[in-house]
């Protein structure tokens, strides 16, 4: 069991996805072998369930067997009243049981890793594994500066992605923006992305699509009018499904297209074309990339001009 403690408060524009990409970057795609990851700390406690699920989902990308967050009020509020969840007394009994299996305050772990959440910036990947991430304004590492067993993979990844050490990922042009996957297309993800998209337009050179994480999310998003925000900006509003998370249906990259993607994997060929390039990032970062036609720090977008009616 490894405890991953994310301290402090995440800054504006920094999300759960940036936390987990940082975890995998620090510990490696094989760093979790033999472990289950328990996530906690102020930043995780402050997160909604969608964010916690994004983190736990990608534990696998860090090599861990599983990932979880201890149940708390956020968990109970999320569950209470949902379909198939027992009500009243039965719910209280379940809560007691959940509390009883939750980690004790003095629990001992095989390993503890602490990450300062207040120090994070949006993270994007520069390579072809989820562990090859970098802060959007940070230089892409030189393969020679990486651990010995990661250097060959890094070299072939940089060749595939056509990126150079020392450059930043900011400015990397994109052809496709994919806002989808069960990792990162839940309602709060779509809300955060819609906030970026509202009043802006998808770049002329970009094909952009939203694929809600489930039929239920799709319906809830439509009830809030999020679909209109996206379609007015030029996004395709699609039905729920795996879509470009793994390129099993017709939603695929063509040739060597470059894709800003909120999904969880960037392996060669993952989005259907073996020449295709996938850059993983958070939903608001995908929205910003769709608008600008290149990878940008979502926090640097010019404010939308208010137009007089």
């Amino acid at each position, binding site marked *: 069991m490894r405890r991953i403690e994310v301290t402090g408060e995440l800054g504006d524009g920094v999300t759960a996805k940036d936390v987990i990409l940082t975890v995998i970057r620090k510990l490696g*795609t*094989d760093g*979790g*072998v*033999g472990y289950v990851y328990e996530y906690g700390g102020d930043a995780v406690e402050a997160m909604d369930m969608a964010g916690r699920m994004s983190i736990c989902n990608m534990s*696998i*990308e860090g*090599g*861990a*067997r599983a990932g979880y967050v201890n149940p708390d009020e956020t968990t109970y509020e999320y569950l209470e009243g949902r379909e198939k969840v027992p009500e009243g007394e039965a719910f209280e009994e*379940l809560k007691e*049981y959940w509390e009883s299996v939750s980690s004790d305050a003095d629990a001992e772990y095989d390993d503890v890793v602490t990450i300062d959440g207040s120090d994070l910036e949006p993270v994007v990947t520069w390579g072809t*594994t989820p562990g090859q991430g970098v802060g959007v304004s940070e230089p892409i590492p030189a393969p020679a500066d990486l651990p010995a*067993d*990661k250097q*060959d*993979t890094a070299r072939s990844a940089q060749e595939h992605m056509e990126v150079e050490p020392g450059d930043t990922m900011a400015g990397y042009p994109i052809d496709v923006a994919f806002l989808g996957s069960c990792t990162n297309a839940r309602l709060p993800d779509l809300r955060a992305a819609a906030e970026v998209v509202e009043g802006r337009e998808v770049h002329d050179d970009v094909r952009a699509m939203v694929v809600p994480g489930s039929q239920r999310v799709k319906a809830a998003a439509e009830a809030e009018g999020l679909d209109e925000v996206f379609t007015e900006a030029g996004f395709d509003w699609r039905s729920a499904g795996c879509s470009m998370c*793994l*390129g*099993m249906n017709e939603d695929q990259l063509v040739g060597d297209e470059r894709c800003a993607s909120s999904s969880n*994997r960037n*392996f*060669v*060929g*993952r989005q*259907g074309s*073996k020449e295709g390039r996938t850059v993983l990032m958070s939903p608001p970062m995908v929205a910003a990339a769709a608008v600008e036609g290149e990878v940008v720090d979502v926090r640097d977008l010019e404010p939308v001009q208010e137009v007089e009616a």
Partner: protein
Amino acid sequence: MSPTTDGGSDDGPADTVRRVTGTGVPVRGNDVDTDEIIPARFLKVVTFDGLGQFAFFDERFDDDDEPLDHSFNENRFQGASVLAVNANFGCGSSREHAPQALMRWGIDAVVGESFAEIFAGNCLALGIPTVTASQEDVEALQDFVEEHPDADIEVDVEAEEVRYGDTTIDASVDDAQRRALVDGVWDTTALMAANADSVEATAASLPYTDD
């Protein structure tokens, strides 16, 4: 050369896998992910039969389906059953199709520096040992296999050794995996079916299962 899996007495509901012997095939490189082992577009099947031909497909064939340089394409490695790989093999998607494709290509055992855990678990569920050894030993094994594609490699799960030519290397098999293979209890479906009473008793004791 046809591979042999050396079984023993049937202690469990599945065959015992104590030793796997057969010729080898190397696939070099760290962090080989399951999308490389079998690309997603080949997953839309109702049976795993026939997946072997798609193993490492995008590395074996170009866009016009013309063969590329890859050990799985080489005549000398056809019929091989022991796969020799490097570090973090099988990372990424937990797709069962990855070990299924390898198994159906002919692989019965994998020797590597390290494995992604879910991939190793999926291999175990098919009775395929994932045996680890040092980087130096694995690279020497890969070199040997390149030079002697017809030579038998003996993967001894029980003794935690890999033998080839005059060489014996110390290998390591996760304890639970070794027990499951040696005792013939790696097939969890068969194991549960053989112990239905105890499955029902356990289910009844859990607070989150309905009657």
